[in-house]
């Protein structure tokens, strides 16, 4: 349907894209949207490239989108932005985490991690760069990088009316609630 918004979250297996999409879709449902979310399990999780799609609006049909259809591309890892860039609408927004994870050919010294990705993306689309890894480390746990990115995403999509703290409280283990809420707020303020 015409008012449907498309969010594409991409990263590397183990970065926590699935938790973010879970918090995101739960909050959107609570706010009264029709929501569909799609993720891929299985072999890709073994350090491979992963993607999750969240679509919301008054009535959503397809759980997935094709190329040129994402309103926002949230990339948890710098090089993954390029792999999924064609899914972005030409007037869409890219949220790039300035965080590099070398893939197997790079680790083995066969090829170099490509340089100038952020500049390339900035030259082609509306880009917001965030150093979520650094923010998470300042908070004392690099793992909450994903929720920093969630905060930045919420701000970028103007979804700040929803009570995200409440959703986070219900979706993460009690002892991690505080740090995740902090990460979320830091992310909101970072863009």
């Amino acid at each position: 349907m015409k008012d449907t918004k498309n969010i594409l979250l991409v990263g590397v297996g183990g970065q926590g894209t699935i938790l973010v999409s879970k918090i995101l879709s739960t909050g959107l449902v609570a706010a009264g949207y029709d929501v569909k979310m799609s993720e891929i399990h299985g072999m890709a999780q073994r350090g491979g490239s992963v993607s999750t799609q969240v679509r919301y609006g008054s009535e959503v049909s397809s759980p997935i989108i094709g190329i040129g259809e994402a309103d926002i591309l949230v990339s948890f890892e710098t090089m993954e932005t390029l792999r999924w860039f064609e899914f972005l609408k030409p007037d869409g927004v890219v949220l790039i985490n300035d965080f590099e994870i070398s893939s197997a050919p790079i680790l083995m010294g066969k090829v170099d991690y490509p340089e100038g990705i952020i500049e390339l993306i900035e030259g082609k689309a509306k880009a917001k760069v965030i150093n979520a890894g650094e923010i998470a480390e300042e908070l004392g746990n690099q793992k909450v990088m994903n929720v920093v990115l969630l905060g930045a995403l919420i701000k970028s999509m103007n979804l700040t009316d929803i009570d995200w703290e409440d959703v986070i409280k219900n979706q993460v283990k009690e002892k991690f609630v505080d740090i995740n809420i902090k990460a979320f707020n830091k992310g909101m303020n970072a863009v």
Partner: protein
Amino acid sequence: MKVLMTGNEAVAQGAYEAGIQFAAAYPGTPSTEILENIALRKEITAEWAPNEKVAVESALGASIAGARTLTAMKHVGLNVAADPFFTIGYTGVNGGMVLVNADDPGLHSSQNEQDNRYYARMAKVAMLEPSNSQESKDMVIRAMEISEKYNVLVMLRMTTRVCHSKSIVETGERIEVPIKPYVKNPPKYIMAPANAKAAHIVVEKKLKELEKFSNETELNYIEWNDKKVGVISAGVAYQYAKEVFGSSASYLKLGFTFPLPMEKIKKFAEEVETLYVIEELEPFMEEQIKAAGIKCIGKEKIPNTWELNPDIVKKSIFGTENEIIDYDRTIAVGRPPTLCAGCPHRAFFYQLSKKKNTFVTGDIGCYTLGGSPPLNTIDTTICMGASISMAHGAKKVFEKNNDDKRVVAVIGDSTFFHSGMTSLLDVVFNKGNTITCILDNRITAMTGHQDNPGTGYTLQGEDTDTVQIEPIVRALGIKNIKTINPMNQDEMKAAFNWAYDLNEPSVIISRYPCALKKYSKDDLAEFGPIQGYCEVDKDTCIGCKICVSTGCPAIVFDKAAKKSSINRIQCVGCELCLQVCPTKAISKVGE
């Protein structure tokens, strides 16, 4: 209550609400979470079976005994279970029975993308196809009603995007359905030729009744809009069609897709100017519709390879493409899945990769990645259990051709229980001479850590007998067996040398837990906790890249400095790199 659920979670909720009493499955992406979620409901007896055939047969037994039952599997799992599946088409059921089949268009995690809708037609069982999570739940309940009313097995055919997409589901209460009495009925349940002959006549009659139902049921419904374009669709493809055509087309949305509602289809076709059949994979509906003399457009425009999405449907039909940002797509370096840091399979394959003049047959599991760079150790991978039997056939022909190649079969613990045991029996019976390696990582890892007969725990995590592999192998007739720890490279190497020196079949059980596994108390007692991490001494490192050649994702090679280093966060301290380093530049710290 409205809840966001995956299709798999919704099937489990449906099983609960429908009063299902017994469920069995073997894990397989994208179907695995169905049983995992059913297991959370204490009312249902839920079990991991050793393979899909066993799951279907135990569910059939439960149905004949009078309970509502469910079994679930991925598409290729139904190949394994095809034998009972076809004959249930003849016997029918007592308690309602649903077989959930999850196809994988796009091969996200499979070896082929077969379209299992043909199975329903071939086995003459009824088929339902949900297009979202709500329908996934509702259709399990409807499947029970149809199964019991028409005395048939119902296949619920899902696909990856239905299984793994979340959408909103209205949940309800469980209906307690009493277990039906079992009445002895040999003509119905003993499928000896005389009875089966009679049963086939009954099946054909039932199909006519089911076709009538298909034409009448609201599971197959029409949405009238503009009549210039009509779309017939089912499953997730219907959602893609809706996205593309919106309210500019009329729809015949099919939820009950075998037998097809041909009368309803005819009426719909008569009312619309151009008729499209939009379906993922094969022209299952289109061929039947065309055979009924109805003009429609389908696979001449829409691809039958890989999964669809709204963009592909739009491009196929209208020839229009979304505007996209132009950039150089070759910049991003590939990111293939890899064996995890600390994976015992790496330690195994590293030694096997050193062996010359060797043909390696692989199997289905994480260890398929042993065929990828830099290990490159596998020659062929086909299906569950195939490694051992393919190795046997290959060795026979190499011998016949005077080729002294050694043949090594590589199979996991769960896969060995699934369908490797009979293959090993073949090796013994037919005087084979292969080396079978069972990579016992103490869990079914690839599908996300499910228990199996060898782990000592049931689906619900309750203690059960731990089946030992070595006595099974011995009982099958193998005389040469070694159980070793692959993380000890000397031991691993010695085991290969021992096996290569033999002139009769051998089995090496390479036993060490998956690096991601949460250790059980038995694991802790046997293997102890792993602590610390490995570190490279820059001065001693000569930049030979031998540690890099293990393919460990924790090892980083700095091309400029010509030195290796180890990522502390990723490293689990397995010590493989430490053992392969020729200059002893790697040491263990933090223990």
